[in-house]
């Protein structure tokens, strides 16, 4: 069990000393062996060990590092993901990138692009210009959407 889990804290780099201490106090109050019901010595011990590790920024840095490590020390191994896996990973994080970006603007752009496309298909159906405008609207949306997405992890 990670020390973050033991203290019911999210594994994030921006945790403060106060947050960690507050989490520890809450768990200690619930699980301390001196309580009338005997507490939960195992949970208390786990939380105490976790607090000892996470109470300083350096300790949190170490713990977080162990959670997010992708390569071992010392031998660096080429771990470039295969193209298919990279593509799948990019698609998998897309919802989170939208959520953490500017979803409203993205939606407004999508509505504008869709409106232009629908207008073209309605006003000039059967002409060569209609599919061209649909393609142009879609391209415009794709090119401008990137700015409204949050960067992928690690960037």
């Amino acid at each position: 069990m990670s020390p973050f889990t033991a203290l019911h804290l999210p594994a994030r780099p921006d945790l403060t000393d106060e947050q960690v201490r507050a989490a520890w106090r809450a768990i200690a109050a619930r699980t301390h062996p001196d309580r009338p019901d005997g507490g939960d010595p195992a949970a208390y011990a786990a939380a105490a060990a976790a607090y000892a590790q996470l109470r300083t920024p350096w300790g949190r840095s170490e713990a977080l590092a162990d959670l997010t490590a992708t390569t071992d020390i010392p031998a660096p191994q080429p771990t470039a993901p295969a193209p298919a896996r990279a593509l799948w990973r990019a698609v998998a994080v897309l919802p989170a990138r939208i959520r953490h970006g500017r979803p409203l603007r993205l939606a407004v752009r999508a509505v504008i692009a869709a409106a232009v496309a629908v207008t073209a298909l309605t006003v000039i159906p059967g002409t060569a210009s209609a599919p061209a405008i649909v393609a142009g609207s879609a391209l415009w949306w794709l090119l401008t959407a990137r700015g409204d997405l949050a960067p992928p992890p690690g960037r």
Partner: protein
Amino acid sequence: MSVWGLLRALAVLWLLRQALRLVRALVTAAALIAVWPVTTTAAIAAFAAWLRGWPAARLYRAAAWSTPMTGVYLLAVALHAHGWRAVALAPARDWRTASRLAEHGHILHAALLTAPVAVPAGLAVGALAWAGRINAVTAGVAGRSAYAPAAFDARQWRRQVRAARGALAAPGTVPLVTRAGTVPAGPVIRAVGRRWTPVLAIPAASFTRHMVIVGSSGSGKTNLMIRLWAGWYAAAAQATRRGKPRPLLAALDCKGGPDARAKASRTRRVLHGVGARRVGIWPDEATLSLWDIPARELAVLLHQMTEHGDGAAAYYADVSQAVLTMAVCAPGGPPRSAAEFLDRLDPGWLAGAYADARPAELTALRAAGPHLGDIQLRYATLLNRLGPALDGPGTITDADAWYFILEGTREPSVAETQAMAITELIAHAATSGNAEPRAMLLAADDYSAVSRRVPLSNLYERGRSLGLGVMVSAQSWQGLGSDDDERYRIAATADGGLWLMNTPYPEPLVQLAGTRRVLETAHKLIGATWGDEGTSRIQHAWTADPDLIRQLATGQACYIHRGTATYVQIARPRPSPLPLPAARTPARTVIIPPARTSASGNGHHGAPTVPLPPVGLDDVLGPGAAP
């Protein structure tokens, strides 16, 4: 010819010229009306560029990105029509249809019908027109007054800044690193002498060279530096996945103070976001061991760490160096701690260690004997002032990034010595053949605070010789070195680029960007108004305008590289809010113990005292909580 005849000839010539002008204007107007879809798009594009301060290059890019729409249009025509002739004439046929529709008031219908060809063509024509307008006004051949070029430039600058700031609001515009491994700095405000791009991205290779950052206090230097550090780290980490060495960042904050702690904490947060696993903050949270340096280098470093005089003092300096060399390079191996080193500066210990030495060494030992007490006292004082953070354990390569806080403002002499030691440790890490090779970046913020004994040029050249990337910052031109020779040595060798932020004296630095040729036009005055005659000539103007640099607002920078200048709005460094992928294999634990609290007032903040976990419920919730 009579006077009357001459006047008549002149009048005819004038009328002819005016007629030609009129004809030209009418033909142009007819052509513009004839291709009204293109004209309309071009006018809208040029107006938008004027309003937003866009360069013509932006319109050209938009035109290029619109051509797929034209491609789809032609493809659709080709699927229905037979023969290339029908495909080639399709735009003209649609234009004719659209013109008829427009005459009957069906504007939307007409615009949609012609858009696939009119949009790219209009954008390109608009870009041409806008580029022509910029050139004409800048050269002084357009505008209503002599002040027009200056007013135009000032207005466009304001609009360019506004557009660049607007681009910052988009979260995905300026990530810390791109997929290609370049490091974006921020949206481009203006590019001089180089191709315009929406965002200035620095190739990772530039970081393996040397960068100089000059900006006064409050100019946004910290943001820029943290962004560059994190971007470099992320780019190097990407390269690690392709088998390149792991990155190691060493940032020296040479001014120190409470701000340095906040900056260190922020740096760590950003570095965590790009995958740095262990970020050591020295001396508050992590220690290093000076005694890891090989014996010979350690003896030289220890000698250099103390101040020496000239004249008679040189003799004692030589004696001190000889003793240090004997103590550090003793047969049993180098000392492993400050206490062990000080123990060695004792006649008894040295006599024992060198019991089997050659007669010459024994003679030297006897000669140095009377001075040993003084030397020990001097080094005990020095090591005490340096504090426990250099007395280990811990090595540079244990971490992914280090943030060294040197109290250069409060305790300059201690900070200078610490800087010497840390630089030596970094050099050792870079050259050690036994350790894992690392891609290293050595960054020194406000190095002038500690540069009295180790000049910046020395650090710089050291980095070059070791193959490290070196990034240095100063608050002004004067802060780069003690004299102009040294300043020019540093600035002129910054082949990774020169960042200029708001600074009151940028002239020596803008010289490094050189000049560019511009057209300067002089008008003939007729009374108090301009005539239509004048002269133009090629003049040289600064590529990086010093007056513009003096007026840069907070967060704006001018990046000078290979004779070009790019003005950038620096984006605040924020890592992606998305969590990094979870580890598939746990990392090997490398422990850097926290620094011991200094009891001797060693010139820096001691490690924060952290209470041990409470053992009783009263300790958790206060007295009376336990039942």
